[in-house]
């Protein structure tokens, strides 16, 4: 430890401010996820459109946001966009816009892959039963695609939660910004950033466990004769091997 004495008092004093910062982080995360999950549907549908202009526009959008760093996107919206439009956005709004635009691109690709994983026969069965294109999407494709892609969607959301730390660079008072400020005031970087890391971990780890559990459950529920197995909690634990209970196909 290089003779360093860990000061627990610093942790206690910094915690209330950092929890406030966590509130901002969670706010940005939730708003971004909700908007992205909705916006990604039309983008994904556009990406699969038979009309070239729509397809190329959707793909262009996705590629721009997938292939440039999130920090550059954030700075571009906060610093460059005002130069272009003359409108200066507050840091919070810039952060939400940049993160939403970025997550929407990734989410749209996830949706598209999910949509395309739905067997064409199921969509055609809907067509044969007179369901409209929208109804096919609403009742057949989206529920299955969501279910299929849920682990990926949750992973993207975990990444987004961690990536919100970047908004501290445009002076949004999130957990990372508060941590940085406190650390600059008391020179206790080890305590403060360890605490910050712990808080991020405490939020992200349970979601990661749930993601793993859902993934395992999905692997086990395919095929005929599935019967629900052990509880979600049992399946959540890392490395847990849970065999699905099957009944003999009649």
């Amino acid at each position, binding site marked *: 430890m290089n003779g360093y004495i860990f000061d627990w008092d610093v942790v206690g004093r910094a915690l209330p401010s950092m929890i406030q910062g966590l509130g901002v982080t969670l706010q940005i995360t939730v708003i971004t996820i909700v908007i992205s999950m909705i916006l990604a549907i039309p983008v994904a549908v556009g990406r699969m459109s038979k009309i070239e202009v729509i397809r190329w526009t959707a793909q262009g959008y996705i590629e721009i946001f997938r292939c440039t760093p999130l920090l550059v996107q954030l700075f571009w919206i906060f610093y460059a966009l005002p130069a272009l439009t003359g409108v200066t956005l507050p840091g919070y709004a810039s952060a939400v816009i940049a993160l939403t635009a970025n997550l929407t691109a990734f989410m749209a690709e996830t949706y598209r892959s999910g949509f395309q994983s739905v067997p064409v026969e199921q969509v*055609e069965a809907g067509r*044969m*039963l*007179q369901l*409209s294109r929208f109804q096919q999407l609403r*009742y057949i494709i989206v*529920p299955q695609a969501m279910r299929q892609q849920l682990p990926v969607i949750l992973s993207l959301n975990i990444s987004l939660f961690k990536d919100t730390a970047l908004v501290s660079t445009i002076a949004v008072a999130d957990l990372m910004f508060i941590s940085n400020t406190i650390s600059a005031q008391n020179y206790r970087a080890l305590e403060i950033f360890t605490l910050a890391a712990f808080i991020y971990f405490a939020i992200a780890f349970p979601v990661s466990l749930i993601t793993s559990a859902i993934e395992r459950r999905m692997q086990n529920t395919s095929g005929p004769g599935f019967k629900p197995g052990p509880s979600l909690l049992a399946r959540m634990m890392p490395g847990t091997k849970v065999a699905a209970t099957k009944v003999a196909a009649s």
Partner: protein
Amino acid sequence: MSRHSTPAPARSTDLQQKGTQMTTPVHAPVSTGTGQVLVSARGLQKSFHDRAILKNVDFDMRIGDITVIIGKSGSGKSTLLRALAGLTDPDDGVITFDGKTVFADKKRTKDWGAVSSEVGMVFQAYTLWPHMNVLDNMTLAPRKTRGMAASEARDRAEAALDEVGMKHHILSRSTQLSGGERQRVAIARALMMKPKLILCDEITSALDPPVAAEVLDVLRRLKEEDGIAVALVTHDMAFASKAADRVVFFHNGEIAVNTTPEMAFENCDNPDLQKFVDAVRF
């Protein structure tokens, strides 16, 4: 039979045989139905990437008939089914359903929408929506497309499931059913829309023979009790010989033989059909 009130114009080319290989004697149709033509296709053509899949196909189906369509993979039988179902448009030709022209001049006519709900289709696999239980699978379309009340839809679902012997599974998830059970529910789901024609694309190919027999029994009952016409693409020659009213043999995108099961399997001198039947039997 009362559902089929519109008499369709009788076509004279029901038993056409095409090409130079056509040597099978032509016989009158053996039908348990009224003899009225329900579906008629004339000069159907369809190509994919310059490969002709349907070459000027003429085809008739009568009310209450089971027509078994056989042929090698890629011979055009599934494409014909998809064209009749409206899942793919022919490049050319005319399709008439229940006396109404629904496809002509390379496009669907205004009558298409009205009759498309009278055609049901069951697929080879992935037939049910796995995220729903049997009841939801059955009632989604009637509720959403016809505004049927949930209670009425449930009653109708119970009746349709009863018809295929699956009523006790009404609340089961589709993933809990065996392959044969899923196909029977898929047939019942098609019945919910009260079709006059059910198209079945190799629905028994992934099933064990006894399970396939159960599914085929259901189709036979529908034909006998409800007068529903069934077009069935299959490689099950046992079923084709027992239950089919007509056997249509596709070869290279053309209907090479269109006759009775007896003629097709016992007295046929079409070499391609003989070769195909021998290959499938053994």
